[in-house]
């Protein structure tokens, strides 16, 4: 098995007396889709926020290709190749669809500081944006206001923005939430394709999608890792059955 790109150990985050994430260890490898399961409040989003830098850990380490990044701010982690999407759609509603993706792509461009040129005509960021929108299945109507898109399209844009930064690691927080069947199927196909070349951490409640996509599954309960392994192992695990799957909570 290849070395992990992103690896966390003993990752803990306390909010007052509550440990939302308690000594979590997780490793993400290129070409592997790693799904994160757990009931609401298990600490899945907290873990994503810790890995992306939106939250700072109380203790523990996060290594990206062997380098410690636990204290780096989110923008530095993004530049190192960690891209994340948000559970609650987090786009620039007042911008056009295209400009959302173009701005995301611009973050990789050293000319992002230029004050004399017209951003809307920059060929590099335009091309990257177009490619990302195409991947996410949002080719058409990109001059619409992002805020006017349907919920499913906004979720696609959310992914397109992450892809426009061309990350190696994708942290995806419920990308399928609220999508219709057709959009959902398209997103699953996209994730499958991306999994070949990226390291993906996927938080998702859609069990069918998770078991269809995941190479490895980690189940969290109360901020701790309950079980981690290939899908077959998770499906067979009695602890998981007892703590989670049996509850019908997801």
């Amino acid at each position, binding site marked *: 098995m290849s070395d992990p790109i992103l690896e966390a150990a003993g990752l803990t985050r306390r909010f007052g007396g509550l440990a939302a994430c308690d000594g979590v260890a997780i490793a993400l490898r290129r070409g592997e889709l790693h799904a994160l399961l757990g009931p609401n409040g298990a600490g899945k989003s907290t873990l994503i926020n810790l890995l992306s830098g939106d939250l700072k850990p109380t203790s523990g380490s996060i290594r990206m290709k062997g380098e410690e990044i636990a204290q780096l*701010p*989110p923008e530095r982690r*993004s530049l190192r190749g960690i891209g994340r999407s948000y559970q609650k759609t987090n786009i620039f509603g007042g*911008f056009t669809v295209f400009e959302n993706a173009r701005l995301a792509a611009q973050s990789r461009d050293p000319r*992002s500081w230029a*004050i004399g*040129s017209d*951003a809307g005509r920059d060929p590099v960021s335009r091309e990257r944006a177009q490619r990302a929108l195409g991947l996410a299945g949002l080719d058409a109507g990109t001059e619409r206001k992002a805020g006017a898109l349907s919920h499913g399209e906004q979720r696609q844009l959310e992914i397109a*923005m992450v892809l426009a930064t061309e990350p190696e690691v994708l942290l995806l927080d419920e990308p399928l939430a609220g999508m219709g069947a057709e959009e959902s199927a398209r997103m699953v196909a996209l994730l499958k394709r991306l999994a070949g070349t990226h390291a993906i951490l996927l938080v998702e409640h859609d069990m069918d999608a998770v078991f269809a996509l995941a190479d490895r599954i980690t189940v969290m309960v109360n901020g701790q890792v309950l079980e981690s392994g290939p899908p077959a192992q998770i499906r067979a695990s009695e602890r998981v059955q007892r703590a989670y799957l049996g509850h019908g909570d997801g």
Partner: protein
Amino acid sequence: MPRRHLAPLAALLLVALFPLSGATFYVELTTKIMIMAIFALSLDLLVGWTGLVSFGHAAYFGVGAYTLALLSPKAAAAGMWSSLALAIAVAAVCALVVGIFVLRTRGIYFIMVTLAFAQMFYFVFHDTDVGGGSDGRYVNVKPDASILGFTPFDFDRPVHVYYVVLAMLVLVFLFLQRVLRSPFGRALSGIRANEQRMRALGFPVMAYKLAAFTLAGGLAGLAGWLLAAQSGFVNPEILSWHQSGNVLLMVILGGAGTPYGPIAGAFALTLLHELFSTLTTHWQLWLGISIVLIVLFMPGGLGHLVRRVRASLFGGGRDV
């Protein structure tokens, strides 16, 4: 030429022809308004485009004005181009240093901390002798505009000053419009809309804000230099919190984040002030009431009113 440029160009033509009327008082008043408009445009880069409500922008305006006053010898003229460049640079450096501290805060704290820093600048000039204390300082001889022996204009002639200021206003406006369309400007708009997302996308938000704060400070310094050159006098009131509030009001009144809003706001606020102060001694009351009414019925400011009227006339809104 797109139709949306017609009205601004007509207004520009009107302003350009105005000195032909020979009404010296109003020529000087309009000059002052245009200086305030440059000042307001610089603030709108922060308030309207980056989402940073600075309540201490007068500090850099004042630093620009004092730079000219301090560079002017008692009985000789300071060179226009060198003193202007220095005024912009000094104001920008002051903004850079202050920005490093104030940009760590946000929301109401940012407003308060920018105000606090501006008050420090105010008291430096008010309570020490650097700039003549509370009495201020005269620019006895107006700056000398000569380039290689050729003098294109004379700061002792109000009409000349009028056109210099008008030209600067147009240049600053065009410069800012260009900046806002640039990658840097788009990043600022993104920061205003959603700072967290911008960081997650890899933008060093703090550095962008600091650059915007510095740029806005430099442009405020330019406006301050023009004020000192026009009036020939500086005093600490230029950097008082009234002045910071005044320019913020212009931006809000005109419409923050709209291209012409700050200019419209500078004209509207100054002319309302003139109007009420000639009509009544209680002008502040009437000015206050009209501001409340404008903000109440035109929440986006005058700039948004223009957009709404245009949309209803020609159909279809065009948004930034």
